Structure formats: C-alpha cells, structure tokens
C-alpha cells in the first residue's frame, strides 16, 4: 500500500542550512546540508526538500554543490526549490543530483515553464509549489484563497484552485501547498485549503505550513469530511527544533490507522 510521506524541509542560503536547527546541536556542524540530510536519512524521513533562499549568483552555484554532495551520499528522494525560473535551472539542478524541482513564483510569472520542464524532464520531477492566502471575507464563488508570490509579499489575485488545475494541465507532477495563514503558527495545517486542492487535482498533494503537534499530521493526511486528503506532509521547525522526530510522527500515524513506511533493517 502506498504510504503517506513525511518530508522535512531545510532552507539553504549560500550553501549552508540557515535558521537555528536545535535538534542537531550535538552534531559538529548544524549548518552543513549533508550532515543534516544524513541525520534525516537515519530517521527514515521519506524525502528531503532543500529550499534555496540565496539571492546571489555565487549562492546559486553553491546550491548546485549542495545538491551534488547530498545526492552522492544519501539514498533518498531529494527536491530542490527556490529561484527556479527557466528550463536551464531545472537541467542544472537535475544534473547535480536533485530528483525533483519545485517551482513557485517563476511559474506564476510564466506558466509555460511548467509545460517546458515537464516536456523536457517528465512530470515526475516538476513540483508546483504554491503559496496561498485566504481571501479576506471569503469569496462569492466559494473560491477562498489567492496565490501569492515573492515570498508571500505579493498577492497575484490568481485563484488557488484555478492555478492548481492549470498547473496540472500544464504538466506538473505534484502540488506542494503552503497556506500562509497557517505557516509558522504551529496551529495545524489548513485542512480546508488542502482538501480543496486535493479534490481539485489528480496529483499528489504535499501539505506545508502549520505543523505543530502529532495530531496535525494525522488531520491533514487523513480523508473524510474533516481531513486534509494530503499525500504527504512537509514540516520544518518542528523537526529542526526537535519538538517531534520523524519516527515519532510515523509511530503516531500508524497507531491512528494511516499507512506509513515502517522502520526497516536488513536481516
């Protein structure tokens, strides 16, 4: 049975993981992407996402080095995102060793980027990452969220569900939904928005933003009228700060009746 995925996400700037990663204080170098990737591999995380927040040319180059070093040493799926604007960016990151590339603002600016990347490299490596925010006061059509870009600063006015559907038509293989109202609150994923996207597309949906406690993962991954219907859950701070570990989340989900990949050791 296909299992629900738990995905830690790491922010990278100029080739180093930034933000305080408290869980890894006992490691010699908590900013080294490879050290952290190996630690999460040991926890049997299902995938890893590295998000490049570098603004400089040198920093972008260092990100390629990060992808290459991690892909050489870690036997797990690796997604890289941040500042991807062209097919050439896809090619560079894939050649470096990334398995999937996530696009966000670059695809909003030029939706054909999704189509071109999908035609060149296959839908399986094109993750459409969407930052969405609830419309103030809702919307008469019931379409309640708009797409934001530029790290969330700019409201494009694009309807979330329409954009997700368009992304699917253009050839995205997966949708990663970050609901900004929930992001960083640790008050739980936005179940309503996640469910709406999961119902609007036939693609796997990764829920992002808002993870705080074990029940949040269950709620967003389960189906039914109240669940988020997500296929995977992405989280950053709860893992980095050691509030939760990946095995702990999986043990909880298993007890709650959700399919997860169990810990495995060779006989």
């Amino acid at each position, binding site marked *: *049975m*296909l*299992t*629900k*995925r738990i995905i830690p996400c790491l922010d990278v700037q100029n080739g180093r993981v930034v933000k305080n990663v408290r869980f890894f204080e006992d490691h010699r170098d908590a900013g080294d992407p490879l050290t952290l990737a190996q630690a999460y*591999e040991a926890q*049997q995380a*299902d995938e890893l996402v590295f998000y490049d927040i570098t603004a400089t040319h040198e920093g972008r180059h260092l990100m390629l080095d990060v992808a*290459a070093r991690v*892909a*050489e*040493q870690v*036997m*797990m*799926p690796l997604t890289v995102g941040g500042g991807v604007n062209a097919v050439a960016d896809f090619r560079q990151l*894939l*050649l470096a*060793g990334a*398995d999937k590339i996530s696009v966000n603002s670059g695809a909003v600016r030029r939706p054909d980027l999704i189509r071109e990347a999908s035609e060149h*490299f*296959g*839908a*399986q490596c094109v993750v459409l990452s969407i930052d969405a925010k609830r419309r103030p006061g809702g919307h008469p059509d019931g379409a309640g969220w708009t797409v934001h870009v530029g790290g969330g600063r700019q409201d494009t006015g694009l309807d979330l569900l329409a954009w997700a559907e368009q992304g699917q038509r253009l050839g995205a*293989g*997966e949708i990663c939904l970050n609901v900004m109202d929930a992001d960083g609150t640790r008050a739980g994923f936005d179940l309503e928005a996640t469910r709406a996207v999961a119902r609007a597309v*036939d*693609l*796997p949906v990764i829920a992002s933003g808002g993870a705080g406690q074990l029940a949040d993962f269950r709620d967003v991954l389960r*189906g039914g009228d109240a669940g988020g219907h997500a*296929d*995977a859950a992405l989280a950053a701070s709860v893992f980095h700060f050691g509030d939760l570990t990946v095995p702990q989340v999986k043990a909880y989900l298993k007890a709650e009746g959700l399919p997860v*990949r*169990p810990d*495995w*050791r*060779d*006989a």
Partner: protein
Amino acid sequence: MTVKSEVLLLDYGAGNVRSAARALERAGMTVRVSGDPADVPHAPALVVPGQGHFRQVMEAFDRHGFHGPVMDAAQGGVPLLGICVGMQMLLSGSEEAPGTPGLGLIPGTVRRFEVAPGQKVPQMGWNSLDKVGDSPLLRDLACPAYAYFVHSYYVPLDVEVDAGALTEYGVPFWSALSQANLHAAQFHPEKSGAVGLAILTRFRRYVLEGGAA
C-alpha cells in the same frame, strides 16, 4: 573475494546516473559508467537505468548504439539489471508509446495506471514489496519492505517471469522481476534507503557472485 564485482552502467542520456552509480558502489560493486556501446561486449554485467517517456528513452538508447550490443549480451546470458523505465524496456512495448518496440526480451506490454478516486497518477512514494517465488534480488529480504516509486506505467502480472516482487496500486503489478539472467526493479533502489541498498547488495551477492557472501 579479492576482485570486486564489476558492472557497466549505461549512460545514454535518459536521466542522471550518478545516484545509481553511487548506490551500486555502496552495495560493493565496481561501477564503470559508459556511453560507448563498444564497452558492452566485454562487460561482466549491465545496469540499464531509464527515466522519462518510453519512446524518448528507447530512441536515446538506439541513438547511442546500445540496442544491438545489449540484445547480444542479454541473450548471451550476461546478468542485466534494469531500473524503472530500464525495466519496462525489457518488454515488447508500452501503452505509453504504441508503435515503439521495446527490447522484447520478455514478452508483454507495459500498461498505464488508471486514474480513479483516491488513485493518483503517477504513483509517487513508498510502497510495499511482496515476494513471489525466489528472486535473487529479494532473497532473505525481510518483508514487508518498502521502496520508492515514481511511475505512471507498470509491468502487469500476466507477464510471465521466474520470480519477483508484487506491489499493489489499484492493480497488482510486478515491482521487481527475475527471468533467467534478466533482473529489474520498477522502483528506484538508489532512492530506497536501506531497502534499496539491500536489494542491490543481493544483486551483487546472488547474481554476480553466485551466492558468495
């Protein structure tokens, strides 16, 4: 054993071979990556990766001149490991590209998953393997074991093989197979953590080294 088992990993532009090369090395093999079909006749074993559209993968394979030499080697009993579309290529053809013949080493047609409620295509993620018969790839492997899949097409169970692994995604399908000297995995062993490493190690131990530890 003093000489490490050597494999020739075919690089014909259908996906990145670095992760696969590194994983094969971790499993104890010496890996030679080659885009030159002249290397094939001397190779003790072949690893055929593949990623992307069936037609484009077959065309790239043919364009690099691998078709003939790989057929000769495979029919001559050289051990071969196909990965992902490298597995699908072993069959006669695929619903993904009607009119594009596969290698035809194993009769049968690769099929597409149906989109259904609760069933998304591609299948993307970790799914379980159940052993069918005694494939050397899975010998003594603790099951259920989970491997990482990314695919929209699959080898159906009506394809006859000696042994393999079965996985269920709406339909049961061959997620790994062994047929004489041919072995293959639909999942990505190089992305499947400890399970992937265990399966590649078994390919070395039971196929290349004939059972030596």
